[in-house]
């Protein structure tokens, strides 16, 4: 068994998915089923007063009995806002403590504000939250977040929703090598190969939303991502061959090659 373990809980899937940007709840549910994800992120927002109270709620479609819900702090630009959001999330989810912390620094790039992220992480850990933390791919910050007591480090591969893939595999590798807790790529995956590369580098998992939701066929892409994460993980565990630069090595034997016929 090669389980993904976070905050002491075992999961067979290493693909974590978001629930935003889908056309409707049917598409959300179908895509998430196809992805095989067991941990799914949700956002916390003001309820729309005056809307039809019989309208289905996200949690009716994706019940907490089936999935580990990971409430996020998307849209928060300060430690204070993020903490407030997660306290509300804990109340909403009956004391659930596994959360995704993200404190943004700028609405154009959605780049994390690591100073506020660290501030928030310190308080949330003291309040017994289990914090999976979105951060930049800075190995020093990652180490600090681990020391604070976060349960997983989730560096960006590139900007949120950009689909630009893994721009700095070297930094990711340093983070993976220098931390003991799970490292997940969060943000920037565009297609299946990006997810596979993250896993081949040794990431413990990948979290994505837009790469699936914004695909022409989200349900098929969800299935592709599931396979990519599994393939990348297997390739990592199998141990890739050493790279040879500037010289080839034939796959077929050199012995017994038919001699060149005289003309």
């Amino acid at each position, binding site marked *: 068994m090669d389980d993904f373990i976070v905050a002491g809980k075992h999961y067979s899937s290493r693909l974590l*998915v*978001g*629930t*935003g*940007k*889908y056309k409707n709840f049917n598409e*959300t549910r179908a895509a998430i089923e196809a992805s095989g994800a067991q941990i799914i*992120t*949700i*956002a*916390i*927002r*003001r*309820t729309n*007063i005056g809307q039809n*109270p019989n309208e289905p*709620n*996200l*949690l009716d479609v994706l019940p907490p009995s089936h999935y580990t*819900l990971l*409430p*996020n702090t*998307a849209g928060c630009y300060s430690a204070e806002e993020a903490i*407030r959001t997660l*306290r*509300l*999330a804990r*109340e*909403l*989810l009956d004391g659930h403590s596994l959360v995704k912390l993200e404190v943004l620094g700028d609405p154009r790039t959605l780049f994390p504000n690591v100073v506020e992220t660290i501030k928030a992480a310190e308080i949330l850990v003291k309040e017994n939250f289990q914090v999976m933390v979105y951060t930049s791919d800075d190995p020093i910050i990652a180490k600090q977040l681990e020391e604070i007591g976060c349960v997983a480090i989730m560096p960006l591969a590139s900007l*949120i*929703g950009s689909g630009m893939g893994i721009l700095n595999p070297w930094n990711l590798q340093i983070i993976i090598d220098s931390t003991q807790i799970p490292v997940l790529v969060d943000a920037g995956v565009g297609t299946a190969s990006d997810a596979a590369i993250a896993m081949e580098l040794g990431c413990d998992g990948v*979290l*994505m*939303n*837009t790469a699936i*939701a914004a695909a022409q066929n989200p349900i098929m892409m969800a299935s592709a991502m599931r396979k990519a994460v599994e393939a990348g993980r297997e390739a990592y565990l199998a141990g890739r061959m050493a790279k040879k630069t500037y010289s080839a090595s034939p796959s077929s034997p050199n012995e017994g090659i038919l001699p060149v016929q005289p003309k």
Partner: protein
Amino acid sequence: MLQVTINGQLHHFDNPLSLQQLLEHMSIQNKRIAVERNGEIVPRSQFTLQTLSDGDQLEIVVAVGGG
């Protein structure tokens, strides 16, 4: 006359009411929600016990799709 701000919007009520009665009035008493009253989270068990005061600021949140 009671004036309460709910999710940033002013609402007026003629008679005193509890948080639970307010949620029933909005038909969301059985929904998965969380409530913050003047910056403090109100546990679900307190809904019937807390009577709203004039000038209260309420935030009522739900889970929505997000990444």
